[in-house]
């Protein structure tokens, strides 16, 4: 049982790291491979604030969100916005460039070694609920991710803003011509996406570690979650993250010698079965 709980916690963490990408890639159709760089930024914000400025851990989480959202908004206004209309390949090239710069910049400023997050005492240790041993921090992560998932679903996907966003992606020119402030819609979405990455990075630094190559190391995981989840909903990536998290943890527990096979094989199989991800609206023609 504990192992399933671990799987859920891991899946939730994957989700929170990837859900920002689900927004920018899924809803905005922008292939931002540099997503992990924003997550890394969030992680470093947390580390710097807790260790150098002594800000309490809890306060750092919203700060990590805000700071990265701000960075995201800034980059969106100055750089990213020029790339919306461009081909996916341009976007790949560009965001890889951003990754390279982010990695070396962080290396320059913070050094290349692992940063280590120190949790407050009340988040450490374990509790036993109904006979299942659970890490307190993992419980905490699950709670935050659940809140984020609900907030996203309610606040972004089902609303008029959500429709406007999808309209702007489908056809930005016509959306403009019909009065949608495409730039604003994109900027807000991008900022929220980056902010979520930052929050995920901050939350995840504890479990995943944090060093300058973070954006590359975990890029594949983000992409897997979004691809398997499908790009048109938020529930898709959530479910995908949970499935992958649980399958990975269970697989490693019961057949550890299979190692990394499980997650990749599972991904390929799911994508063969549902090429557009678990949840995708039929795209005719």
């Amino acid at each position: 049982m504990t192992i399933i709980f671990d799987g859920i916690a891991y899946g939730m963490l994957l989700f929170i790291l990837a859900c920002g990408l689900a927004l920018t890639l899924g809803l905005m159709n922008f292939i931002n491979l540099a997503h992990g760089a924003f997550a890394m930024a969030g992680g470093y914000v947390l580390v710097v604030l807790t260790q150098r400025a002594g800000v309490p851990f809890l306060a750092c989480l919203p700060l990590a969100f805000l700071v990265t959202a701000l960075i995201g908004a800034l980059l969106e206004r100055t750089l990213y916005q020029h790339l919306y209309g461009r081909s996916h390949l341009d976007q790949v090239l560009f965001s890889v460039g951003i990754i390279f710069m982010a990695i070396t910049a962080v290396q320059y400023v913070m050094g290349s070694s692992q940063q280590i997050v120190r949790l407050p005492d009340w988040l450490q240790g374990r509790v036993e609920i109904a006979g299942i041993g659970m890490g307190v921090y993992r419980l905490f992560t699950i709670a935050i991710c659940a809140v984020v998932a609900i907030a996203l679903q309610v606040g972004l996907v089902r609303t008029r803003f959500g429709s406007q966003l999808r309209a702007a992606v489908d056809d930005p020119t016509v959306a403009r011509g019909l009065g949608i402030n495409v730039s604003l819609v994109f900027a807000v979405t991008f900022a929220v996406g980056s902010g979520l990455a930052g929050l995920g990075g901050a939350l995840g630094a504890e479990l995943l570690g944090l060093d300058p190559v973070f954006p590359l190391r975990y890029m594949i995981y983000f992409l897997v979650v979004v691809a398997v989840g499908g790009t048109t909903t938020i529930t898709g990536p959530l479910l995908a993250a949970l499935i992958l998290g649980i399958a990975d943890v269970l697989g490693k527990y019961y057949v550890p010698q299979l190692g990394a096979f499980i997650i990749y094989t599972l991904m390929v199989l799911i994508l063969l079965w549902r090429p557009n991800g678990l949840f995708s609206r039929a795209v005719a023609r």
Partner: protein
Amino acid sequence: PAAMAQDTVKIGMIQPMTGPFASTGIEAVAGAKQYMADHGDTVAGKKIELVVKDDAGSANDTRRIAQELVVNDHANVLMGFGLTPLAFAAAPIATQAKVPMVVTAAATSSVVEKSPFIVRTSFATPTAAATMGKWAADNGIKTAVTLVSDYAPGKDAQDWFAKAFTDGGGKVAEQLTVPLQNPDFAPFLQRVADAKPDALFVFVPSGVGAPFMKQFRERGLADQGIKLIGTGDVVDDQILNNMGDAALGLISAHHYTAAHPSEMNKAFVAAFKTANGGMRPNFMAVGAYDGMALVYQALEKTGGDTDGTKLVDAMKGMKWESPRGPIMIDPDTREIVQNIYINKVERQDDGELYNVEQDTVENVKDPAKAK
């Protein structure tokens, strides 16, 4: 400048300076530079020039760079090699070009066998792993589980620990390998918890050590009475202090600790920290430091002759005092012979975490080569 070239000795240092293994390269380059800062850049009338190249951890690049260093830059010595495959890739170049190749990092046992021109100043994984295995068996640990990263050094460590441990009367309950890029140790640690051994022997690359140890604590394995033991890679000095209390009490076997209580080491650590913005030297730094020391001394012995064969011959059997303690190059295997220390993570007076020596096993040879 032909005459100039005669008077300089070029050392081509190939290290991963970018990519996932960058921290290895950065420490090593700093270590090498530290030696030059301490001992000047002329030996036996020759000027030493250190050329640093980044191979980003890619064997293809390592090989090409090594080749270019030899062919174009006329490097007299190759040095570095952050990972085993990188050393393997470059080994034939050393053989063909007859250039000494000083390995300051890669730790798989067989590296030195790949070319008669390879000399190693880092360590061979089996030395640390086997020492740990023997120590564990001698210190009341009956059963152990091993958990290693899924790559060659990991398997080396696992096998040699297990061998020494079982030879000493211990029992390995389970052997776990985790993927190199593994974000979550939960399932593996849960297996450990279920197996209830006396100790868990761990070998993971230094960057992964911290998350691993936290998860070990979080899962309460320590409270279950499971001792965490390993080689020094896990408690790499570079990041040890940041690990926080999670690391306290870990027992590791290694050939270097920044807390080594010799005067020489104290001076080395202080100088290194000053030169590198407070970064602590780790075993990678000391490996490269000694690599330079080896080259300097060999040159002195040959009187500045840079002929590769002569240099390697000079290196064989060389003995000197390093910040890590007394070391020697085995004349038969060109492998380093050194003390292995049993360390325990403790908080020292300056408030920082260190690997503090508990026990010393002197002049350990690589057991893998003791045929």
